[in-house]
C-alpha cells in the first residue's frame, strides 16, 4: 500500500524531461497518469528513485488532424479522447475502445501515452494502434524517432523504448471515410483487463471487403497484430467461411496466460469469438 521513497521532478518541456532522464539514468521513471505505475509502486513491484511527472508539458497534449494524419499527444487522457468530437467523427474506434478501459475516475487521469508505452499486455490501446498502423513518436536527449506500433512490443513490459526515451505522441492516418470499426472486449466486470479483445478496421467495396486490419489484446505477452487473420477476409464477402478462416488464423497466433479469467483454451476461444463479433460489427458499420 505504501510506495518506496523517490525524488519528484516536474519539468515543463520535453527537452527538460529527456535531459533529466539522461542525467538521472536507470532509476528514473516518467509518470503520465500514473494509473499503471503508481499501483505497481504501491505494491513495491516498481521502486524508482526518481519520478519525472510529465503533466506540465504542453507539447505533450492535444489532438490535431492535419492533411490526413491524426496526431495525439501522449498526455491526452482517455476522457479527452472520448470527449473529442473530431476523433469521434473521423476515427470512432478510439472512443469505443476508451469507454471500455477501466472506470470514469481512471479515464480522467490515464493517458494514451501511458496506455501504449509501458508494454502491459493488458492495456487496450496498443492493439488499437497496431490495427491502425500507428507510429509512436519517441524522443530522448539524443533526438527524436518514430517506431511503428506493430514493431514496438517485445515482451511483457519490454518495448522498443531506449534509454531515456519518452513517447511524445501517436500518429496515424485518418481511416478511410465509410470504414467499419469495432473493438470487442470480453471482461469479467468494469475495470477488468480483457479476457480477450479484438480491434477491427475494414473497408467494403460493394459487398466485398477491400481492406482489413485486426489486432488482439491480452492474449499473449504483447498485443498481436493478426496479419493472417486480416488477409483471410480481404477480397471476401465476409461469409462464414471467411470469418471462420479469420478466427482460426487469429487463434493460431494467441498465447494467453492462464489466470482468473480462465484457462488458455478458454481465452484463445474467446479471442476467436471477439474477432468474429468485431468483424461482424465493423461490417455492419461500414458503408
Amino acid at each position, binding site marked *: *500500500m*505504501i510506495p518506496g521513497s523517490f525524488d519528484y521532478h516536474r519539468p515543463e518541456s520535453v527537452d527538460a524531461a529527456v535531459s533529466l532522464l539522461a542525467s538521472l539514468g536507470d532509476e528514473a521513471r516518467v509518470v503520465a497518469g500514473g494509473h499503471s505505475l503508481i499501483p505497481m509502486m504501491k505494491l*513495491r513491484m516498481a521502486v524508482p528513485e526518481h519520478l519525472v511527472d510529465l503533466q506540465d508539458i504542453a507539447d505533450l497534449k492535444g489532438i490535431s488532424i492535419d492533411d490526413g494524419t491524426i496526431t495525439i499527444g501522449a498526455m491526452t487522457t482517455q476522457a479527452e479522447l472520448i470527449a473529442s468530437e473530431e476523433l469521434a467523427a473521423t476515427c470512432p474506434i478510439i472512443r469505443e475502445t476508451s469507454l471500455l478501459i477501466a472506470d470514469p475516475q481512471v479515464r480522467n487521469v490515464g493517458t494514451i501515452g501511458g496506455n501504449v508505452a509501458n508494454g502491459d499486455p493488458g492495456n487496450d490501446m496498443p492493439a488499437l494502434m497496431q490495427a491502425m498502423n500507428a507510429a509512436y513518436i519517441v524522443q530522448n536527449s539524443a533526438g527524436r524517432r518514430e517506431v511503428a506500433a506493430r514493431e514496438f512490443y517485445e515482451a511483457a513490459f519490454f518495448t522498443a523504448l531506449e534509454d531515456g526515451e519518452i513517447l511524445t505522441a501517436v500518429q496515424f492516418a485518418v481511416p478511410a471515410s465509410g470504414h467499419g470499426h469495432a473493438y470487442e472486449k*470480453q471482461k*469479467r*466486470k468494469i475495470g477488468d483487463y480483457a479476457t480477450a479483445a479484438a480491434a477491427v478496421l475494414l473497408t467494403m467495396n460493394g459487398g466485398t471487403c477491400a481492406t482489413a486490419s485486426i489486432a488482439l489484446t491480452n492474449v499473449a505477452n504483447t498485443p498481436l497484430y493478426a496479419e493472417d487473420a486480416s488477409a483471410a477476409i480481404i477480397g471476401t464477402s465476409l461469409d462464414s467461411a471467411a470469418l471462420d478462416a479469420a478466427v482460426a488464423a487469429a487463434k493460431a497466433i494467441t498465447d494467453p496466460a492462464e489466470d482468473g*479469467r480462465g484457462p488458455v483454451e*478458454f481465452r484463445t*476461444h474467446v479471442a476467436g*469469438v471477439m474477432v468474429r463479433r468485431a468483424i461482424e460489427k465493423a461490417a455492419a458499420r461500414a458503408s
Partner: protein
Amino acid sequence: MNDQATPSAAERAEKLQGLGCSRKRVEDARFTQGKGNYIDDMKLPGMLFGDFVRSSYGHARITSINKDAALALPGVIAVLTAEDLKPLNLHYMPTLAGDVQAVLADEKVLFQNQEIAFVIAEDRYIAADAVELVEVDYEELPALVDAFKAMDADAPVLREDLEGKTEGAHGPRNHHNHIFYWEEGDKEGTEKAIAEADVVAEELITYPRCHPSPIETCGCVASMDKVSGKLTIWGTFQAPHAVRTVASLITNIAEHNIRIVSPDIGGGFGNKVGVYPGYICAAVASIVTGVPVKWIEDKIENLTATAFARDYHMTGRIAATKDGKITALDCHVIADHGAFDACADPTKFPAGFFSICTGSYDIPVAHCGVDGVYTNKAPGGVAYRCSFRVTEAAYMIERMIDVLARKLDVDPAELRSKNLIRKEQFPYTSALGWEYDSGDYQTAMDKALAAVDYKALRAEQAANRQAFTNGETRSLMGVGVAFFTEIVGAGPVKNCDILGLGMFDSCEIRIHPTGSAVARLGTISQGQGHATTFAQILATEIGLPAEDITVEEGDTDTAPYGLGTYGSRSTPVAGAAAAMAGRKIRAKAQMIAAYLLEVHDNDLEWDIDRFQVKGNPEQFKTMKELAFAAYNQAVPGIEPGLEAVSYYDPPNMTYPYGAYICVIDVDVDTGVVDVRRFYALDDCGTRINPMIIEGQVHGGLTEALAIAMGQEISYDKLGNVKGGSLMDYYLPTAVETPVWETDHTEVPSPHHPIGAKGVGESPNVGGVPAFSNAVNDAFAHLGLTHTQMPHDHWRVWKTAQSLGITG
C-alpha cells in the same frame, strides 16, 4: 384533563415514527457529510503505527528472522516476533472454536500471508519500509491445499503444536489434520430409508471459499493508560463485549480495566467478529510503549489472512418416492477450516447450524455429518451473512432439490411445492431437531410464482431450447428457483454460547425528565441502521417519538452486555430486549399514571402515546408527562426515575424464509450470464422498517450474485493464494448488478415480543442457490446434473463445451 385538541390516533402514531414505518435514518447525517467516525479516522497524541511482516509461503519452517536492518531505520520503535510474546503467553490466542491460533508465527508458518512479525513505527510509511527490511529465512515444506487429501495417511503434518492431542475441543480427532467430526440426526434410519427408496439422487455440492470483503478493512487503536491501568481498544469489533472478556482472560488485565469501543464500522458481514493477531499485537505494543498504537490492514491482507467464508464440500443424498415425496436426506461434509479452527460458531456447534439443511421441506428422517480438516490456508470459515453455516446448508438442499427434480423429470417449483412444510405443521420440528417457529410457505411460493408468471417463463424456455437446437440462437435461458428457510437469532443460552458467554442480548433505556431518552444495547451496527430501527421499536413500546430516543451501541463501559451483531441476531435478540425493556418502562409509567389520575392500574389502557382511563379517554397522561412525573412526583412504593434494562434469553431461534426466482440468459459462446430478472420474496415476520429491509435485501442479493458468479479465494498446490486482491476478487460494480425486485409476506414469529425474525442474511442464503439453480437449469435439458460455483465465464463455457454445444 387537557385542553389542547387531541391529535388523531393516526397523527400520533405518525409522530412516533415507530414500528412499521420507513423512517429515514439518523446515521445518514454524518455519513453523507464525511463526518463518520471510523477506526482509521482516529488520531491520538503520540500514536504509533503497527504493520505486519507476513509469510511468503503456505507451509514452511522459519529458520531465522533478522530484525537488525528494520530496527536501524529511524522512526522504528520495535519489531515483535513470537519470541517477544512467549513470556506473556500471547504468541498463541484462543479462537472462538476452541482451538488456538498463532498471533505471530512460532517457528513455522501455516498459510501464505500469515503474521510473522509486528513492526511498530512512528508512522505508517516508516512501518511499511521497516516491514520490507525484516529478513525471514524459510525452509519450505509441502503444502496441503486439497481438503479431500487432508486425512490421507501420507498427508503432511500441519499443526505440530497439536501433536499427540487425540481429543479436540469437539471430540476425538482421527488424524493429525482432523479437527472434529460432528453429526446430527438418525444415521441408521436415514440409511435405511435411502436403501429402500424408489429414487435416490446423490451429488457433491461444493461451496467454494470466498470472503466477505467489506470496503473497510479490519483495524484497531489500542491505548494503555499506564497511570490508571486501563486498556482501551477501539476497533472493528462486531462483538465488543465478547472481545473485552476474551482480552481480559488472555492478558490477565481485570475486565473492569478494559474498555472496548466499536466506532462506526464500514461493513462487517461477519469479517469483523473474531479476534485477529493485529488487535493483540497492537495491545501488547501499547502496553509496552505506553502510547496508543494503531493497526489497519490493507485489502490484500484482509482478503488473504482474515476470516474467509464457506469452503464446504457437501455430498448430499436425497431419497424420494417415484411421485416426488422426499423420504430422507443425508449429507456428509468435508469442511476446510484452514490452518487454525477460528470459526466464529457457538461453542456447541462446530459446524454451526448446518443441520438446518432439511430446509423448507417436510423430510421425515435425516442425518448430517461434518468432518473439519486443517489445510494450509487462512483460518476462519463462518462469515459473509452465513448465520453459522446456514448459507452452506441452504445451498446444499436447494441444489439437491433441483438435482432430484432432474432425476424425477419434474419441474423444480412443483417438486418444492409438493414437499414444503405445510402451514398447519407449525411450529414444526425438523428431523434434525430444530423447532421452526412459524411460516406459510405455500402462500409465499404461490405469490412468487404468480409474480414472475412462472408458467410463461417455462413456456418461453421451451421455445428457446427449440430455437437453440434449430441453430436460431446461441443463448440459453435458465430459471432458478429457491425456497429457503434459515435459522437466525442465536440464541437460547441453554445451547448457544460464544466461549461460554450465553447468547442473550440486552437493552437498557433511561427516560429523561423532559421526555426524551437514551437507550443502549449489546449489539453493534455496521450499516444495519440500529440507531434508527431500535428507536422505532422503543417508540412504539413507550410512546415517545423515535427522534427523541438516542440509541447507542459499542462502548463496553456504557452498553449492557451483549454478544454483538452477526448472524442476523440483533432484531431477534436485542430487538426483543428492547421491546421488553420498553414494556418495563410502560409498566412503571402505568403505575405513575394510575397515581396521578387517581385510578387503579387496571382502569387504564394504553393508546399509542398515553395511558387513558378506560371508558373515559379525556382522562389521560402522555408518556412525556409521565416522564416528568417520574422525577417530580413522590409516588408511594415507586422509586423515582424512569429506566429499565432487559437481558433477553430467546426461547428459540427465528426462522425467516423466502421464495426467490432468477431468470438468466447464457451466451453459450462466451460463458457470459446475463441476469434478466431477479424476484425476491422475503418473510421476516414483523417488518420494523420496510425501507431498511429492502436495502438489506438489495445488498445481500448483490453479495449472492458476486459469490455465485465470480468469487473465489483459491490456492495453488504450492500454497500460493490466488484471487487475493481486488484485481481478481470479484466485487460487482453498479453495471454488473441487476435491478432487484423485492416483495414480502409477513407471518410473525409467535415467540418474539414483536414477532420479528431478522432479515439481513436471508438474501445471501436464498440468493446464491437461486443464481446457481438458474445456471444449472439453463443446461439441464442437455443432461447437466450439477456444475460448481462460481459460475464465471470460463466455467460456464466449459460446461457448455462438455455438453457438446460450443461448436
